[in-house]
């Protein structure tokens, strides 16, 4: 990896009451790189994502995106600069057909500034849905989002994030709640995004699939970064085994 540094997180700290949710976490992400963030439940992964995307204001520390300081900016201005994210819980606009769901993010000033013409948003939406694996010639894109199975909802959430043409994509537990088959069909979509040169951060519990995608992982425990590096090496380290797995792994 020798791209430019696209995201630089420096000593981020966030307290919720007496609990230190994120404790002096620093990491860097290079252009086109895929980074995994893993850790046990409650270790501060989602809070870290919220800190980067501006949904939560940090108590101290800095975030730089493409060299620009974005610490404490409103979430919408962070998004406008090109950081797209998905949410753990996919909550689409249930009554709208799936493709109409995407009209909302396609209305974004970021898209309009880059030449998205009025009137063809629905066509762009259908293209996007095809990209994330909605069968184009079926009725699926036209069904109300509320009638879609969970796997499609997650992919709709991914499409929503892609609609603003982000340079950095942050996926917060995209695979959670998906069946093995659904995950297997989603992985190629993400690999394709990578090939297109998107930078990627994935918060994930599904390690097997995650390690197929990412080049590097950081491990959080009680808000602290306890390890960073190549997935295989990181999982071998004693601190990670103890924190993340709780017990000595057998075999594997």
């Amino acid at each position, binding site marked *: 990896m020798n791209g430019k540094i696209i995201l630089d997180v420096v000593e981020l700290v966030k307290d919720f009451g007496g609990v230190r949710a994120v404790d002096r976490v620093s990491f860097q992400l290079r252009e086109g790189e895929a980074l995994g963030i893993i850790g046990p439940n409650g270790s501060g992964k989602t809070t870290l994502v919220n800190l980067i995307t501006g949904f939560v204001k940090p108590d101290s520390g800095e975030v730089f995106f493409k060299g620009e300081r974005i610490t404490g900016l409103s979430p919408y201005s962070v998004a406008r600069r090109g950081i797209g994210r998905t*949410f753990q819980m996919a909550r689409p606009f249930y009554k*709208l057909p799936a493709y109409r769901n995407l*009209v*909302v993010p396609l209305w974004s000033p970021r898209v309009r500034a880059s030449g998205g013409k009025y009137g063809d948003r629905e066509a762009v939406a259908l293209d996007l849905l095809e990209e994330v694996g909605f069968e184009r010639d079926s009725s699926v894109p036209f069904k109300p989002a509320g009638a879609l199975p969970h796997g499609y909802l997650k992919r709709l959430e991914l499409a929503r994030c892609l609609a*603003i043409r982000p340079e950095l994509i942050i996926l917060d537990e995209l695979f959670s709640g998906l069946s093995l088959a659904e995950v297997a069909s989603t992985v190629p979509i993400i690999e394709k995004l990578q090939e297109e040169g998107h930078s990627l951060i994935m918060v994930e519990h599904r390690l097997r699939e995650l390690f197929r995608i990412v080049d590097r992982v950081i491990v959080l425990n009680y808000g602290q970064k306890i390890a960073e590096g190549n997935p295989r090496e990181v999982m071998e380290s004693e601190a990670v085994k103890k924190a993340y797995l709780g017990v000595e792994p057998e075999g594997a």
Partner: protein
Amino acid sequence: MPNKEKRLRKERLDRGIKARSEDIFALSSWKEISYLLAPRVLPLMALLFLALFLPVYWKKVLVTTAIFGILAMSWDLLVCTGLVSLGQALFFGVGAYIAGSLNHKLGLPWWCTIWTSGLLGGVLCSAILAPVLRLRGIYFSMVTLVVPLMLVRIIEATKILGGTEGLSGIQGFPNLTVELVLSLGMFLCVLFGYRRLLGTDYGLVLQGIRDNDRSVISAGINVYWLKAQALFLAGSAAAMAGAFMTHAYMFVGMPVFALDYSILPIAAAVVGGMGSIAGPAVGAFLLVPLSEALRGLGALRIVFYGVFLVVFVVGLPEGILHYLQRKYYQFERWVSVEE
């Protein structure tokens, strides 16, 4: 179970989405055109008929109904954006007082004050409420409930704008016809304007804020700015309604901030069906004449009114309009069940 006898089952079919849509397909045949136009044109004809042939007293009721209808629709537009207002009287009262003072102090005629009050009222109310737009749900509602009450007390205490006396001697409309045409015209403009607005991509984004604001924010859209715009759009219509009432009564006073103007729009929206703009309009056309008809009952009026509301909330929680719409889009028929 003996299953020799012929059993019947109710079958329900939805009309195809295509037949319901309003794009070019709709122009393919007279049948399609009339299917789409009937629910829009028939109520308009009924309205025209009422406006022409009602006795004078009920014509005045029709004017009041149209004004409450505008208030109810402006409430509904806010709901579509995820802002539940308990103080539609704020917009109404501010518009009424602006029109009153423009006419009283500057002598501007009614055809000038109404739209100026709409614009000014919309801007002023959005400015007043802008600091609390970040509040969500019940917290925003509580602020909207309190602000009009505060304004009344400010007017009372500081004696500005005529204090408790109000401003009287305001120019009235030349005749009832002008009043009718203007109120119904405003009503229809707001109705079709809002409905068209919600159908656009912009309207879709507004409704997106209601359904999941975080998802809209993460698309890089400044939802607070959009909420302020929605406040302006809703506020200016309600302020225009208030300005109209000032001229209709030739008086403006503290009652324009009364709770009635906050509660009735909500009741109308509940009865008619929220989130569709047309629903609250239908609700207003049911509730205002009803409350007028019950006037003879004296104090008991409010009881009947309340019972009526409860019956509706329990019996038809989706609202009249949504119910009728559903039925309009469906065929129902009895088919025999094959065993």
